[in-house]
């Protein structure tokens, strides 16, 4: 302690009272800086909320804390980590475990075929030695199931879960699995810090309430908690303090007692709306509530991880409509369901005509085109040439690019080539030629190929999902500008689905925010940051659905 006092570098007098102190952490993934000098301090026994939009750097920060291989195989990180005031080097998950840092995972790290006891004691089984184990090693020791069961029962009692330790985890409700996961972390000796990664995302309301209670119980035993969540109401309810990250940067650390919901929302979203798109001259469009391009009623999509739980929405003909919201809240489910990629139900009308959602390709035949967020999976044939990629949907759906000889149809190579070359020029696709394989292109150029293919279908309505994900700023601008141009010049109805609020606010006429599979609110691009923040965090849920239209 003495030498610590002597060195007054940084002037941190509170240093000793933090169980975890991460200082000035920076991380780069192949030239792309995802964390820029982030700091995080957690006191013993406090619940500290870590907040930020998707891509703010929360998971990277936690990966660093756990010494995940993904960090160390990509060149490590800069900055220091201290646990209990001692500088530590965490290079493997095992090291983090030894230091008393535990994680309650978002996707459960449980084995359904094992009992609750086996899951709680996984990797840390208790065992008796025997003759063979004395000769060969610890791995041949016989498990002491009775002692394991006793420990598991004690951990379950601590968090107040009434559950038999010999039950199989497979049949348990989802909410219980989360508690089993917590019991496992509690059971680890010397646990000091627990990370909860969006624990309430998969829980029902009552389960979530119980979880928050349990978190308080754990914290009261002196174990610090880092609580990663998007839900502002939960933060206000249980957290003692919070740190906000945005775009990999440290924004603020606040005590809950000294802040408000509105301030937190502003901190999360608050950024100057960069002008991504130049104004395209005068706006001569006529938008009317009587002329509806897409109308959804009681619309439900079963897309795993992006469930849509009942949306009513009207999109006017000729507008650019934005759909925003945090990852996993269901915004991606909306276009995927309409295109028939995931099972959907409810009423979907395109230009007044009802779509049969059970038929794949139904939307395409109604002149609806879609640029998928999953470029490499759904969007492109990676091992085919750019020209094939551009025309194959149109060949399939509209029977374009064929020579017709009676009932025989043969591929029209020259028409394909002409069209592909035109598209490459128009969208400025950087490639060695139209025969280059789509898989070899950069992300931005792949996105342009996807867009070119959608446009080749001559759609009236275009869904673009995450148009700028993983592409550089120049390409981003071009893609967005082109979308605006299509809208203004050809009167195409464009629906942009994106997690980047800034880009939605720079091109859209209206923005629907989806939260928990439902419509939270429809906002104007120039509405305040706080409104957007509240809508995304589920704070504006009441009555939001009715405002659609």
């Amino acid at each position, binding site marked *: 302690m003495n030498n610590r006092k002597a060195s007054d570098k940084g002037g941190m007098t509170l240093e000793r009272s933090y169980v975890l102190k991460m200082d000035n952490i920076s991380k780069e993934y192949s030239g792309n800086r995802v964390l820029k000098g982030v700091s995080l301090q957690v006191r013993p026994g406090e619940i500290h909320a870590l907040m930020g939009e998707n891509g703010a750097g929360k998971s990277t920060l936690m990966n660093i804390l756990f010494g995940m291989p993904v960090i160390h195989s990509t060149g490590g990180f800069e900055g220091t980590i201290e646990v209990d005031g001692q500088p530590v080097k965490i290079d493997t998950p095992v090291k983090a475990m030894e230091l008393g840092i535990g994680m309650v995972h978002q996707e459960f790290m449980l084995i359904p075929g094992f009992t609750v006891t086996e899951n709680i004691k996984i*990797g840390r089984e208790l065992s008796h030695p025997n003759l063979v184990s004395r000769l060969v090693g610890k791995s041949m020791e016989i498990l002491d199931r009775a002692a394991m069961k006793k420990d598991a029962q004690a951990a379950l009692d601590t968090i107040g879960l009434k559950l038999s330790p010999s039950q199989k985890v497979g049949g348990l409700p989802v909410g219980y699995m989360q508690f089993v996961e917590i019991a496992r972390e509690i059971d680890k000796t010397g646990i000091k810090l627990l990370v909860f990664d969006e624990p309430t995302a998969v829980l029902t309301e009552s389960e979530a309430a119980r979880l928050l209670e349990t978190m308080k119980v754990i914290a009261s035993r002196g174990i610090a908690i880092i609580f990663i969540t998007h839900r502002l109401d939960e933060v206000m309810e249980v957290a003692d303090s919070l740190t906000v990250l945005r775009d990999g940067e440290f924004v603020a650390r606040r005590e809950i007692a000294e802040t408000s919901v509105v301030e937190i929302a502003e901190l999360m979203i608050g950024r100057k709306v960069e002008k991504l798109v130049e104004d395209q001259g005068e706006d001569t469009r006529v938008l009317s509530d009587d002329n509806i391009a897409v109308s959804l009623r009681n619309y439900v999509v079963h897309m795993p991880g992006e469930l849509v739980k009942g949306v009513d929405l009207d999109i006017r003909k000729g507008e650019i409509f934005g759909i925003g919201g945090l990852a996993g809240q269901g915004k991606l489910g909306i276009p995927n369901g309409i295109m028939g990629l995931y099972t959907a139900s409810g009423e979907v009308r395109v230009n007044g005509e009802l779509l049969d959602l059970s038929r794949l390709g139904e939307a395409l035949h109604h002149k609806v085109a879609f640029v998928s967020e999953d470029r490499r999976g759904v969007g492109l044939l990676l091992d085919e040439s750019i020209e094939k990629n551009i025309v194959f949907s149109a060949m399939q759906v509209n029977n374009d690019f064929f020579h017709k000889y009676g009932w025989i149809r043969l591929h029209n190579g020259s028409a394909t080539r002409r069209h592909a070359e035109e598209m490459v020029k128009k969208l400025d696709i950087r490639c060695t030629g139209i025969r280059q394989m789509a898989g070899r292109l950069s992300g931005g150029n792949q996105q342009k190929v996807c867009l070119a293919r959608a446009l080749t279908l001559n759609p009236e309505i275009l869904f673009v999902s995450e148009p700028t994900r993983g592409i550089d700023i120049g390409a981003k601008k071009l893609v967005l500008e082109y979308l605006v141009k299509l809208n203004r010049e050809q009167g195409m109805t464009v629906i942009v689905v994106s997690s980047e609020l800034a880009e939605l606010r720079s091109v859209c006429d209206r923005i629907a925010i989806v939260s928990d599979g439902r419509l939270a609110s429809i906002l104007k691009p120039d509405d305040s940051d706080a409104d957007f923040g509240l809508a995304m965090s589920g704070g504006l849920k009441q009555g939001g659905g009715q405002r659609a239209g």
Partner: protein
Amino acid sequence: MNKRKIMDQLFEQKVVILFVILCVLTIIASKQPLTFVANELFTRIARNSFLVLALIIPVLAGMGLNFGIVIGAMAAQIAVFLTTHWGFVGIGGFLLTALLATPMAVFFGFLVGKLFNKAKGSEMICGLVLGYFADGLYQLLFLFIFGGVIPINNPKLMIATGVGVKNTIDLKDTIKYSLDTVPMLTIVEIGFYIVVAAIVLSALIKLIQKQPVNWKKSLISLVVAGAVYAVTFIPAVESFLAADRLLLLWAVELWIAIVLVWQIAKFLWLKVIRKEDVNVKRTLAICVAAVLVYAITYIPAVYEILIYVRLPVMTYLCIAGLCLFNTVLMRTRLGQNMRTVGQSRVVANAAGINVDRTRITAMIFSTVLASWGQLIFLQNVGTFSTYGAHTQVGQFAIAALLVGGASVQKATNKQAILGVVLFHTLFIVAPLAGKELFGNAMIGEYFRVFVSYGVIALALAMHAWKKVAKVGPSTEFAPASAGALGGGSSASAASGGTAG
């Protein structure tokens, strides 16, 4: 609800039920006396069970059905060739062969495990192809290196030119029946020495590690072991134990006696001494079942079989020992790690288990056990087809395991033994049934080959089907099941090649 449950259970066991029906029909069609079928069957159980049981550990470790046991069999065959050449005979020769095969199998198992770690998710197809590849190296060794590079001067084993090993090697004068004919008396004697050695070693290690030694317990164990050994000096017991085969009737009676004594002793121990709750109904049911089985032995047809079949004691003890080993292993820390890895590699990794290492260990166990299994097989058959003995080991063992109701993800000792019984019953009677029905044994022979590959494809397809049905239309798991199916269809595709 209850009816539904029974139907579900029956559906679960569909493969087993199908094969039971097939077996019964073919036995009837073959018009063979049951004594003959039973005798053949018990020989084949002794021969093949060990190999099938060697498959269980990789299944539990999530590596699917290990087609790589072919490589374990090759290790055994190299060892058999060497000891035959050096002229070791009898049980000593057998043990030396096992000792020689083990390090080779450990090494091969390590390599196979390394390879499988690079091909996670497609171990089965990888193992199948690896078997063919290894067969090439094996042939190079036996056709060229033995004699060509390493001079081997043995006209009995080598072909006339001196380069390359003969097509078949006769084990009649060397290790044939060497394990089967170990007298029971010797077994008891060896058992006694092992127990004594274990007690002494355990006490010594504890002394060295400065841990308290339970002298009283050790002494009691020693006295009990000594008493059992002393009993064998009673002339009546001695003459009974002098034989190397046990009449099936006596085996059944002995088994019933052991079950009864064990159940009653356990009941008394828990109820009277420990005063714990015991499931009286269960104990009673087991005792009644044992008595019923004893009653069945008085049915003339059954009695006829029971006094006709003689079991090789040592071989059956080895099989029982392996069953016990599989069970005990799964109760150890290592076994638990294997099961965890088998269920989910991601979870295992997050729990700090070294996944790759655990998988390699599982592979080494399986390969070593397979090499011992092949030795047991060869000593019982008595002739060693140098270039053919190993080729179908993998397919036959896997087919037997699948017939027993095991799947790519779950396998137990019971399923292995049941599978051996059903599969080999079919194997014995199918050609005879073919001859009876069509006047041509070849048709039965074809049927036999068809069955062995067909069942692999069928069981894998059924498994994939069940998996798809469970997961539903979600695309996430479809590639995995497609992979399993791919493994199945390639196995059946390969059947065309080898059967032709």
